[in-house]
């Protein structure tokens, strides 16, 4: 509760309220403080130490390509620097740009995983894994299916995630075995070439690479391995790094460079509830979720495995985007501002992008269902040509006194932009937001008078225009009544 004291009764006062706030939902509804389709930015003046906060409208989605030329389920997206092309999986097809690579992913569904071999490898390839088979794509866009018919020792079924590390390709099974190919022989799997993550008894959920380590995420623990150069499996466990912190689902795993983020099952840090954790470079892992976010995670129950997640740096913000299936909402953690917001589609449902990649400074996002790949651009203010709504819903304010408050003025401080913004208030604990008033965002003075009386008030600001939006704060003119 961000109540502010300091009012002198019977003297008109103004109070600044920055339009920056973390999600404070008491449950899994839409009451309490929340921000939708927003990114926060904080600037510190190094001379004065003063801080400026901005709530900035999120980038929009512009149509880029539609590889399957129609609706199809998106399963993965990857920009391969070796070819400068975007590779995608829709339904059971792999596309290079909009070209169908004419292989069919047999009997698999869900997320596909990508890894590229090193440029120094004998034949640089892009590996696509669906957990059943692998597909090796050459720089000439020739795709070859790899399964047990090619090598009887091919680890199938596997978890899906594929890691390229020091000329090895690693894939893992749920029983904890982390398999590797022969070095620089990406189709050569040997029955003894595996290392087991077995410090704890849990099943393995995913593997990932972090700097010079392979990270094995179990359902209740995490182990780290490095390349020890040993025969068969080159991996050697780093026992001291192991954590009793597992992964709720591999579909929550996202990576951007040396940052890994996932939804953890956390039996070792409390009651086993879900949390979002991150590991940046070689630092210790740390929890980035808040209790409000974790309530949503736990409410997903078994639907958690249907989530999608991705990370990219967008408009100067490194973000982790987590789409929750049951809640049908998207929560976004911004590593830049260290804050959570929500993103939504043009209707109040989860953001449509389920995977993302970046190429030449542009972020590409794959749609969950319509077969499209979008660009996610800070200069695009719509999603696929339709306006989406920015919502800033504040905490309840009583301004440090239970007495009646009379709001004689409301000023919105922000950049001039197109058309009008809507402002409404709820004085009854979010039960009813009154009919919104509009502020002309082209006007220098963005003001509303006659705010009425309240005891405790929350504000909701919404903007649904094809235009940029950057707001700094709202300023309230308040008189305190006599009782």
């Amino acid at each position, binding site marked *: 509760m961000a109540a502010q004291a300091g009012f002198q009764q*019977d003297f008109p006062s103004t109070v600044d309220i920055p339009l920056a706030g973390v999600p404070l939902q008491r449950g899994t509804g839409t009451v309490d403080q929340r921000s939708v389709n927003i990114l926060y930015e904080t600037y510190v003046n190094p001379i004065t130490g003063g801080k400026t906060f901005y709530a900035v409208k999120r980038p929009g989605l512009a149509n880029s390509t539609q590889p399957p030329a129609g609706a199809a389920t998106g399963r993965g997206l990857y920009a391969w620097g070796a070819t400068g092309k975007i590779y995608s999986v829709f339904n059971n097809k792999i596309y290079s740009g909009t070209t169908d690579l004419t292989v069919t992913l047999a009997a698999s569904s869900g997320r596909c995983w990508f890894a590229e071999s090193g440029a120094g490898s004998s034949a640089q390839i892009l590996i696509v894994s669906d957990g059943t088979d692998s597909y090796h794509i050459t720089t000439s866009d020739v795709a070859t299916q790899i399964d047990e018919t090619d090598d009887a020792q091919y680890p199938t079924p596997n978890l899906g995630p594929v890691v390229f590390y020091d000329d090895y390709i690693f894939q893992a099974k749920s029983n904890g075995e982390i398999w590797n190919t022969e070095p620089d022989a990406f189709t050569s799997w040997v029955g003894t070439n595996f290392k087991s993550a077995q410090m704890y008894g849990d099943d393995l959920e995913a593997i990932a690479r972090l700097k010079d380590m392979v990270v094995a995420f179990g359902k209740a623990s995490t182990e780290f391995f490095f390349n020890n150069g040993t025969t068969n499996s080159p991996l050697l466990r780093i026992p001291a790094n192991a954590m009793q912190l597992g992964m709720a689902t591999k579909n929550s795993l996202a990576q951007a460079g040396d940052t890994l983020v996932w939804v953890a099952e956390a039996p070792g840090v409390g009651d086993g509830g879900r949390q979002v954790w991150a590991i940046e470079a070689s630092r210790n892992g740390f929890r980035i979720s808040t209790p409000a976010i974790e309530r949503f995670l736990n409410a997903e129950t078994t639907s958690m495995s249907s989530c999608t997640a991705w990370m990219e740096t967008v408009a100067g913000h490194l973000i982790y985007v987590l789409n929750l299936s049951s809640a049908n909402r998207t929560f976004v953690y911004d590593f830049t501002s260290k804050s959570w917001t929500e993103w939504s589609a043009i209707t109040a449902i989860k953001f449509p992008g389920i995977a993302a990649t970046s190429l030449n400074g542009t972020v590409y996002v794959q749609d969950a269902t319509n077969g499209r790949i979008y660009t996610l651009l800070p200069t695009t203010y719509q999603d696929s040509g339709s306006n989406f709504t920015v919502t800033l819903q504040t905490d309840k304010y009583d301004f440090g006194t239970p007495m009646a408050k*009379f709001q*004689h003025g409301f000023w919105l401080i922000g950049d001039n932009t197109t058309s009008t913004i809507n402002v409404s208030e709820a004085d009854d604990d979010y039960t009813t937001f009154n*009919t919104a008033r509009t502020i002309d965002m082209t006007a220098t003075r963005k003001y509303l008078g*006659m*705010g009425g009386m309240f005891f405790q008030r929350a504000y909701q600001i919404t903007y649904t225009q094809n235009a940029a939006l950057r707001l700094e704060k709202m300023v309230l003119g308040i008189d305190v009544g006599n009782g």
Partner: protein
Amino acid sequence: MASSGSVDYQSSRTNFIETALKLCGVLREGVSASANQLTDGAHALNIIMKSFHSHGMPLWAIRESAVFPIEDVNTVTLGPSGGHAATTYAATYLTAAAASGATALTVNSITGISASDQLGVELNSGDIDWTTVSGAPSGSTVTAAVALTAAAAINNRVYAYTTKTVKPLKIIQAALYNYDTTTQVPVNIISRDEYERLSDITVEGPPNQIYYIPGVLTGILKFYPRFPDGSSVIKIWFQRPFEDMDAAGDTADFPQEWENAITWELAAHLGMAYNVPVRKMNMIMQKAQFELAKVNDFGMEEGSVYFTSNSSGR
């Protein structure tokens, strides 16, 4: 640009309440008052209007009513549940004699007489038979619901009215009007003390003194002497009560120039209830006082003031 040409703007009860709440800063722009606010505001508005009774007798609130003749009493109750007195009525006379037991009455004019109206017929004894009109009058015939108890001769007076007079707050003038002679004679308004000093109030003759006791919903008018016949009515001019604002869409029973004063008075009342900050409350109260004084001055009759000696012998 042309002016509207209309001069009929009036605020509804809801308009008054919501405007007052906005003046207090209670109601947000563009937001309607809640059900509770409207209920509380309606109550406040009505009691404020009732309190305006005490502000004197604005010219526009002076009403005339007639107290109809009634035999063998000195008292009539005035008000919606009172005796025979009305502001709007028809006064005519029989153009054909009516026998005792008759119901069909032939009158000079049926103008202003409607079905179910109260109907008073002067009998030959000078008494008045009061009944109601049965059915719509037609031609020159009015049908009484109850037959005459005695004969009534041609030219005997007939009175009819639909609605009883409102309760007078204060009677400021009275006169006895005789329909036979079409003459009007002033009637003295005396005090309770003076009335109670009268020796034999059963005397009949043209009433020339009245005394009025206002009550809660009705008042009592005492007159002296008693009506001798049905030829005359006592006309009274009085300050009428302001009408209630019962429904949300009701307009005020006040001239338009009063609407601002009413709004500010209501704001002052509601401001107290909603704990409006003292500084603003003071401004609202000053404004309310100013507007009320201004409109009160405007509503008073502009005429000469006469000073005379009291010759009533007291």
